[in-house]
């Protein structure tokens, strides 16, 4: 089985390559006028609801008081960024955030892909649909519910898991209050809640694969695993790369609510991340400027990461996100 060409590579015959001749620009613009019309509602949306409010970022450089407004508040330059970087715990918090992100990227991220491939390998639509529906259910329960159900299961005060451990002659494990168990619990819950939901996008792109390709592969005597490896995976590579890049952009942005619910005094050394720190140090104390400055810092790191990964993926012959 050789490299299977993705369905998209049928060569354009009549469309001139973009940017070929500058003299053509006016002509091209005119020919694509309806395309620009199509973009119009979307562009308007992004301008009005996304770009227009961005002036709000200015308060990162101010000592913003709600009653003075942006025009009346005092300018403090990079004061808030200095405060963040000189915070004694800053590097611990940054490290914790990056470790959780790494767990997300290397442990969680592949799970939906594998799960989608497994679901796709199921023969018979009945079980396929049933399993699919079952694994995507937890997504609809909020973190509050997931965390409180987990608490009931793992608590040392009568939780079923610890009861079982004792029953089989082991010692109780302090899941909730030990720094060592925070990360495994976190990533397990993320997988539990999100993996099934994450498969949907991959299943959709698998559905778009031309069945003829599998037919041909079977003729060549390729087994199931080889078909997965040589047809399915290459065909969804584009989606995987896109999702990967978009995920990278949220490197410092890990879902506040989940971590906050798991956080306690005993695991803070590993569980305090930037988002929970912003909540305590910024929002709960009404420190709008400080919170915004930290958000700004996160965005810049995200932007750098996206640009970096996007460039790499383009070098590797992928489309990238822009």
């Amino acid at each position: 089985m050789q490299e299977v060409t993705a369905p998209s590579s049928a060569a354009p015959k009549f469309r001139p390559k973009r940017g070929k001749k500058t003299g053509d620009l006016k002509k091209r613009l005119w020919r694509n006028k309806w395309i620009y019309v199509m973009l119009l509602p979307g562009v308007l949306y992004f301008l009005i609801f996304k770009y227009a409010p961005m002036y709000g970022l200015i308060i990162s450089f101010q000592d913003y008081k709600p009653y003075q407004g942006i025009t009346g508040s005092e300018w403090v330059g990079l004061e808030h960024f200095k405060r963040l970087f000189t915070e004694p715990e800053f590097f611990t918090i940054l490290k914790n955030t990056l470790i959780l992100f790494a767990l997300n990227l290397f442990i969680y991220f592949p799970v939906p892909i594998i799960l989608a491939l497994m679901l796709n390998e199921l023969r018979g639509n009945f079980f396929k649909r049933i399993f699919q529906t079952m694994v995507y259910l937890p997504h609809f329960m909020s973190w509050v519910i997931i965390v409180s159900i987990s608490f009931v299961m793992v608590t040392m005060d009568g939780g079923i898991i610890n009861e079982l451990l004792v029953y089989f002659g082991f010692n109780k494990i302090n899941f909730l209050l030990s720094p060592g168990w925070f990360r495994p619990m976190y990533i397990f819950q993320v997988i539990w809640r999100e993996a099934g939901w994450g498969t949907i996008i991959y299943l959709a792109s698998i559905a778009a694969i031309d069945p003829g390709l599998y037919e041909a592969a079977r003729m060549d005597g390729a087994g199931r695993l080889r078909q997965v490896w040589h047809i399915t995976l290459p065909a969804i590579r584009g989606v995987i790369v896109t999702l990967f890049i978009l995920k990278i952009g949220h490197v410092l942005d890990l879902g506040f609510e989940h971590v906050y619910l798991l956080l306690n005094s005993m695991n803070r050394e590993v569980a305090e991340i930037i988002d929970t720190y912003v909540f305590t140090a910024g929002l709960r104390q009404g420190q709008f400027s400080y919170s915004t400055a930290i958000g700004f810092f996160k965005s810049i790191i995200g932007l750098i990461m996206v640009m970096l990964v996007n460039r790499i993926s383009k070098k590797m012959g992928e489309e990238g996100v822009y």
Partner: protein
Amino acid sequence: MVEDRSISGKIYAAINFTLLAIIALITVLPFVHVVAGSFTTSAELAANKFVLIPKVWSLDAYKFIFSTNTIFKAMGVSIGVTVIGTLFSMFITALMAYGLSRKDLDGRNIFNFLVVFTMLFNGGMIPTFLIVKELGLIDSYAALILPSAISAFNMIILKNFFQNIPEGLEESAKIDGCSDFGILFKIVLPLSMPAIATISLFYAVTYWNTYMSAILYLDDSAKWPIQVLLRQIVVLASGMDHSSTLDGTVPPPDQTIKMAVIVVATLPILMVYPYLQKHFAKGAMLGSMKG
């Protein structure tokens, strides 16, 4: 589909099936617990904690939440916002995604970058609120839709799917005299049903989960969507709010009520998926191509 009848094929299928069955069971347990919890008494929940099959059955929780029409009203709002919002969002997202999927478009990369940029940077709650206020949207359902009409993530994914459609098809349509709009609605969209189904589902779930916009933009509690009710009950019943006080005057709602509300608020959106699943069947794209 030709069945793989070899021994190794059967073992492969059996292992795959067993693994999936185990995974599905583990993931579905919390939901079973919630459903079971909604059909029992708070006493049993307190005593047995992780109830999977109630020993004592009770419909009290459902009686309580259905004893007024608040939940129906909220459900109506959510369904309305979800249906209209999803249609509206799909429409403008598809237009934009198709436009940006055209590789011959000048400025395409700039547009794409500007969209990605909004995923990373945002001006915050207050400036957005001011815009919504300036547009006169406060206290209108449109405030739940317009400010989140396009998800950059969904747009990029949809664009990605559109790019995978063989360009030859579009070209031949163009030669046949189809306009750009014609190509989008007659060729591209029908060929992208799995993607359309997926992104519609994403939008529908986002609209169904609308919470913060409702709090910020709706002053009239009669207009609240279901999530506001749901979250209010869940937070009160879980004792997880950040402002614990000594207040004993207002006891939290029963745990069973919390579970019943979760069930009621989740069922409608859950039902969307099986309906969309048919578009994920293999060859769905091929079928529409012929049709």
